């Protein structure tokens, strides 16, 4: 499926990945692969209680364990002024190690430093913590009452963190009241976790110059450098963050975690390198979870199904600290995309967030900030509306699509959609999957009492944060950057502020440069993740790499081309105005025989540059003028087993429109992966807490990751509507399948059960939920279960 690629014509080619030879030989360098002489291992002591006063911590037995060098607690850190970490959007702060009390189960209480992994684990086991349990608030609706104040450390004496809203509440309410049809659905997007296979971790040491060398699994190394400087007071020039190969991130490796601060403190205090690698349990119980939005979605429509208004009111569970990784001004991220692909005259969305005794987080798990929740809300509720109206869910969507000619489209909640052709994408999906034949099959099966469902999701995402006038993290605007150097032989290096976690940047970035400069992508090296060499960037998450850094790379390459044009003019012995860029080379206008290649120009840039400044390099900081709006139509076909509730996803087709495609092989791979994560969320995954605040899904035996056996076979197709404002028209794709697919899966299951009167099922759609819905429906309770 992959192809080799020659100089030029690099975009749109399924070039084999340049990173693969390293990975398939086990020569990747992940953070746990780094070891340094004298290195100590750190283990964290964590609380079994979700809410408790710490009466005492006794480290004496731990210090007697052979090999244990030190134990630090929250008190030690507080005394050093390092007790708290700022959170990314600045609304809250987070304890590094528990101070006075613990607020969630598995919270970090003490850090043990020892000469080996074994000794660190033995030492952690010997730290005696005396707890006095406090009442537990395990759900956000209980939190609302403020009966138990969870965070007396804050000025605001309430569990309410923030209220955020967008749109016109009054007009939305009035329109809904007047609408011929109106549906309301409570939808919970359950708490889930990105669970990359490589857990989080770091190695910290101070080199002979007293400079912090910090190897860490970070999707945003520059932000880490700044954050570490702000937290520790170490000048930013004395911090070197290296984010090596990353074994999957999906948003989990965006926040700065307490363990990192502890490792740095240990390295400083003990004068040894310190390594901390999470266990899987630690990863699932304490690092950034995602979602946990309880959404009341209301749609108004005319009698024939034209949407009149959309209203969403959300109660968000943020856990013990507000560590949601959202841009400063957008505590609920891009939730305003909840009007989806539809032309909605008026809308209102609001989010109220609360503290609970659960792990902190609220990161963007393989999605632009809160886009998955918003997309699921509208796409699920569209099916509820179709059911209410008694019309086909596809027809309802088609009727309400933003039309091709309406772009750029100003949505009721403030976004300007850049481009799209939703009708075309939908039609391609219907044709490819054979919708009419499936409907016929479904009819026949229903007549026999069999349960078959077809589910659609025609979603629109908003990615590529973001324009500096709106978006910042810790005050730093969300631009991204690239630096390109072309060497005398026409080879080169690109450095970007992003960080690949498997997305294949080493390949796609080289393809962009090759396309723009007519060079061989095999000789364009890509380097990311080293804050000493890469220009400042905000990192890779929220599908921002291609929309922002990809644009920066194209723009930097164009700067190089402009400089190269001057040298080409010198080589071609004409004026600069007479040189044009045709078919990946410079040519004297109108004289196709007189050309020079970029490779020749590169050599001249160092050997024969005439009056031009030597060298051939450029840096570009790209501040995007707008977000990009990838979209797609997804179709799931399922069969449901009445007796066991088992759902078999028989077919799944994803038709994506991500604008210009740089590497179709990688785009397809991203779609496959995202669909599998969406499948897992729809059917298997949830971080559950019981009423006592105990986390019930603490490792891979209960937090379920699908294997090749469960994962369906994926079918993909594309339409291409380039983004008009992106230099190469690309929109980004990594997250679309995770954003768009959950609704398609659930809609398919509900469609299968719709003859029984079932209108909604909460994710994860487990066998038992399906079985129960069937049983209750058959017992005549089906109608009652509606609403």
């Amino acid at each position, binding site marked *: 499926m992959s192809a080799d690629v020659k100089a030029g014509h690099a975009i749109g080619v399924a070039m084999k990945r340049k990173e693969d030879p390293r990975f398939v030989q086990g020569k990747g360098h992940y953070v746990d692969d780094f070891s340094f002489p004298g290195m100590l291992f750190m283990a964290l002591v964590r609380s079994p209680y979700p809410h408790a006063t710490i009466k005492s911590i006794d480290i004496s037995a731990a210090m007697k364990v052979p090999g244990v060098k030190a134990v630090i607690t929250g008190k030690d850190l507080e005394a050093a002024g390092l007790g708290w970490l700022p959170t990314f959007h600045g609304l809250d702060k987070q304890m590094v190690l528990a101070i006075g009390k613990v607020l969630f189960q598995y919270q970090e209480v003490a850090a043990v430093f020892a000469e080996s992994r*074994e000794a660190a684990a033995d030492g952690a086991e010997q730290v005696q913590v005396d707890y006095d349990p406090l009442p537990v608030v395990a759900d956000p609706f209980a939190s609302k009452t403020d009966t138990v104040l969870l965070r007396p450390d804050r000025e605001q004496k309430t569990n309410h963190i923030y209220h955020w809203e967008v749109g016109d509440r009054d007009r939305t309410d009035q329109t809904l009241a007047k609408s011929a049809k109106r549906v309301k659905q409570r939808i919970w997007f359950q708490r889930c976790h990105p669970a990359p296979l490589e857990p989080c971790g770091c190695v910290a040491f101070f080199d002979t110059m007293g400079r912090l060398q910090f190897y860490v699994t970070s999707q945003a190394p520059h932000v880490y450098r700044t954050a570490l400087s702000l937290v520790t007071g170490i000048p930013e020039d004395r911090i070197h963050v290296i984010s090596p190969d990353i074994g999957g991130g999906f948003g989990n490796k965006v926040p700065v975690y307490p363990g990192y601060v502890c490792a740095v403190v240990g390295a400083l205090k003990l004068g040894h390198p310190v390594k901390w690698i999470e266990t*899987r349990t630690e990863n699932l119980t304490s690092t950034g979870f995602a979602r946990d939005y309880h959404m009341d979605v209301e749609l108004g429509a005319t009698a024939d199904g034209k949407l009149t208004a959309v209203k969403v009111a959300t109660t968000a569970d943020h856990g013990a600290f507000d560590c949601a990784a959202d841009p400063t001004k957008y505590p609920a991220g891009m939730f305003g995309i909840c009007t989806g692909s539809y032309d909605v005259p008026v809308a209102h969305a609001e989010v109220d967030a609360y503290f609970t005794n659960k792990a902190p987080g609220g990161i963007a798990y393989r999605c632009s900030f809160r886009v998955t929740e918003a997309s699921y809300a509208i796409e699920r509720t569209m099916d509820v509306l179709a059911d209410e109206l008694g019309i086909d869910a596809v027809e309802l969507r088609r009727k309400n699509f933003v039309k091709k000619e309406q772009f750029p489209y100003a949505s009721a909640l403030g976004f300007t959609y850049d481009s799209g052709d939703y009708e075309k994408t939908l039609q391609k999906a219907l044709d490819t999957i054979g919708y009419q034949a499936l409907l016929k099959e479904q009819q026949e099966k229903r007549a026999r009492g069999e349960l078959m469902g077809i589910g659609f999701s025609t979603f629109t995402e908003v990615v590529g944060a973001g324009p500096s006038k709106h978006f910042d993290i810790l005050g730093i605007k969300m631009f991204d950057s690239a630096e390109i150097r072309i060497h005398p032989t026409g080879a080169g290096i690109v450095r970007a502020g992003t960080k690949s976690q498997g997305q294949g940047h080493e390949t796609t970035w080289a393809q962009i440069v090759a396309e723009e400069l007519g060079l061989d992508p095999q000789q364009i090296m890509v380097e990311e993740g080293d804050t000493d060499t890469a220009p400042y960037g905000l990192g890779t998450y929220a599908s921002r790499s291609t929309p922002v850094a990809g644009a920066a790379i194209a723009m930097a390459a164009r700067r190089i081309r402009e400089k190269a044009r001057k040298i080409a003019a010198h080589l071609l012995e004409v004026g600069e105005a007479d040189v044009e860029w045709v078919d990946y080379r410079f040519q004297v206008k109108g004289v196709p025989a007189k050309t020079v290649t970029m490779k020749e120009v590169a050599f001249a840039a160092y050997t024969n540059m005439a009056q031009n400044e030597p060298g051939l390099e450029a840096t570009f900081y790209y501040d995007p003028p707008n977000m990009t709006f990838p979209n797609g139509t997804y179709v799931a076909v399922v069969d449901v087993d009445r007796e066991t509730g088992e759902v078999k996803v028989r077919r799944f087709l994803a038709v994506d429109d991500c604008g210009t495609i740089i590497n179709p092989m990688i785009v397809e791979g991203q779609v496959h992966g995202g669909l599998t994560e969406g499948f897992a969320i729809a059917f298997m995954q949830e971080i559950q807490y019981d009423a006592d605040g105990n986390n019930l899904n603490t490792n891979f035996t209960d937090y379920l990751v699908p*294997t090749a056996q469960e994962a369906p076979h994926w079918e993909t197709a594309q339409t291409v509507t380039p983004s008009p404002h992106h230099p190469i028209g690309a929109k980004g794709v990594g997250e679309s399948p995770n954003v768009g697919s959950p609704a398609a899966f659930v809609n398919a299951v509900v469609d299968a059960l719709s003859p029984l009167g079932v209108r909604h099922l909460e994710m994860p759609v487990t066998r038992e939920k399906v079985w129960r819905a069937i049983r209750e429906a058959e017992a005549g309770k089906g109608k009652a279960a509606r609403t």
Partner: protein
Amino acid sequence: MKVTITVNGTPYTRDVEPRTLLAYFLREHCGLTGTHVGCDTSSCGCCVAVLDGQTAVKTCTMFAVQADGHEILTVEGLAAGGALHPIQQAFSDQHGLHCGYCTPGMMLTTVALLKHTPAPTEAQIREGLAGNLCRCTGYNNIVKAVQQAADVLRQPAAATK
């Protein structure tokens, strides 16, 4: 305890605690960091190596002392004479990897799978790889990679592999 384990043809004699997991023996005592650790529950398969040429094992669920006197094949031992092993080549050709973290385990499970099932169907591949998790690829392309590798390995020229 002193153990001697032959890894990729090279004997490694080391003094280890009995509780040292084979995965950490490979990573930290032999410096072979291609074997990864991704969970605590024998679920993910990132640590799979091949024992005595036949058996795919999760090296996080085996003690190094158990492997004393045995042969272990890890990802570092797959390529020979500067050429990628057909399984490695296939994973790259078919885009059967993204982040690369599960890849070594996935490939070593494939080594044992193809030893016992040289011409697997898609269903057999999916069944055979179900002890290894991948979060990135969605498995479509891993299945294709195993099919390609099986085809290549069944050619007479590759039979010595």
